[in-house]
């Protein structure tokens, strides 16, 4: 499963890298036009770092490396936020070589708490949290209903997608887009979008 996670993260990285332009364009509309560039640079760095971990089985170790690498290569707002998220997700998975619904739920919770502590944002401020929090809730509902990892993640991804849609309807009050005020309405948040496509990639990965 370590190798499995390794591949899952590679898939997430490829998705981010191939959506570099789309994420950048979204950011250009309401931010400074670098979200895709930053994230792609981060996952390029992760790719290189991961080579050394190909035989690593401890999921926590892999996630920690991903978090540290994102922190030291993404920069901007997304770097500390996603970096912290992966670092925090590493804790519940520390020493594990397999993931179950319960652990993934804890990982998501820890990641989101990390993002909130670091960024001091809450849901509804037009940030990645508007994708991630609904995703977490949907995941936990699935968990309560004893669904499979895939089913839980499918629900999470769908909720994230709706969260992205929701960001179009609101005004940003955190992040660079908040400087736009009303002008930010009508645009979808780049960070929420990158969160959603990462979750969706996991879903597609598990479906294979």
């Amino acid at each position, binding site marked *: 499963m370590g190798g499995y996670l390794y591949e899952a993260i590679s898939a997430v990285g490829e998705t981010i890298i191939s959506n570099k332009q789309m994420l*950048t364009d979204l950011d*250009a*509309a*309401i*931010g*400074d*036009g*670098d979200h895709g*560039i*930053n994230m792609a*640079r981060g996952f390029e760095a992760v790719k290189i770092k991961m080579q050394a971990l190909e035989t690593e089985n401890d999921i926590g170790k892999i996630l920690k490396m991903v978090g540290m690498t994102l*922190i*030291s*290569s*993404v*920069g*901007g*707002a*997304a*770097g*500390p*936020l996603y970096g912290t998220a992966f670092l925090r997700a590493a804790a519940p998975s520390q020493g594990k070589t397999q993931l179950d619904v319960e652990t993934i739920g804890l990982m998501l919770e820890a990641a989101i708490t990390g993002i909130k502590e*670091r*960024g001091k944002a809450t849901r509804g401020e037009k940030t990645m949290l508007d994708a991630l929090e609904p995703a977490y809730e949907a995941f936990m509902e699935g968990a309560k209903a004893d669904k499979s990892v895939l089913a839980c993640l499918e629900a999470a991804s769908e909720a994230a997608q709706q969260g992205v849609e929701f960001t179009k309807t609101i005004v940003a*009050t*955190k*992040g*660079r887009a*908040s*400087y*736009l*005020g009303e*002008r930010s309405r009508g645009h979808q948040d780049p960070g929420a979008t990158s969160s959603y496509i990462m979750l969706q990639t996991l879903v597609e990965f598990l479906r294979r």
Partner: protein
Amino acid sequence: MKKVINVPEQVVEEMLQGMVLAHPQYVKRVEGFEVLVRANKPESSKVALVSGGGSGHEPSHAGFVGRGMLDGAVAGAVFTSPTPDQVYEAVKAVDNGKGVLLIIKNYSGDVMNFEMAIEMANADGITVDKVIVNDDVAVENSTWTIGRRGIAGTVLVHKIAGAKAETGADLAEVKRIADKVINNVRSMGMALDSCTVPAAGKPSFVLDDNEIEIGMGIHGEPGTHREALRPADEITAHLVDKIIADMPLVVGQEVAVLINGLGATPLMELYIVNRKVATLLQEKGVKIAKTYVGNYMTSLEMAGFSISILKLDDELKELLAAPADTPALVQF
């Protein structure tokens, strides 16, 4: 995209190399990091000042490393806050026991990355404090947002806090002065034309032939609104009004003025703007103690400018007038 570059991925690295080659008397590289520090350690122990942010604002920030201003500057990717490890290296390189003050522009990314660096440095036992510059009145300050952006007024923070640090003042004192500048400086800008981030390869925004952007940020962020191009005097009056509405100036108040070019605006136009700013201030009975006109906090090749006004008291005035010796600002 037409730029004098080699490859977009290398612009920051090659620029830093070019800076060190140009100004070996002022700056040297912290090997392996996007960090420039003073070529020569200050003669006596002093509070060290570190600033930085995304690249593309040159001469900010490394252009202000030198006696009387900064001790180190961290260069992120273009328009992207540097990462915590880079800031942390700068802090380690410049600390000489009296503590380090980080001068941060108020962007979520910058604040988070610099704060993480502080956590890292504190864990090492280095005393680090921070100030956050938020001079841009284009953006409404409300409890619902993360506050205003930091723009060109930051350079005046570098200048004045740098002069204070040079006196041997302790960290709390230097921070007090830096905060005093921040509390008394307001800025606002406009753009005629966008910049192009090398890695993006196309303009960050597109304006019509007769359209200008008011209150945009220094990273190509959109501003408060667009409007038709107007005469320089009208645009200038509008920006000055916004600044003064936020920071009223009484008769007899002394100020410093910074007319900052964003990269592609000729000095000719900046002086035309300054003519109007000076006239407006003089009409209000405000005394201009010092004026800077030039490219201080740019936005790559953005066409446009910002106006910064700093209210001075005797303390700030004296520190502003103090010597500085850096690649981009020399005063004596």
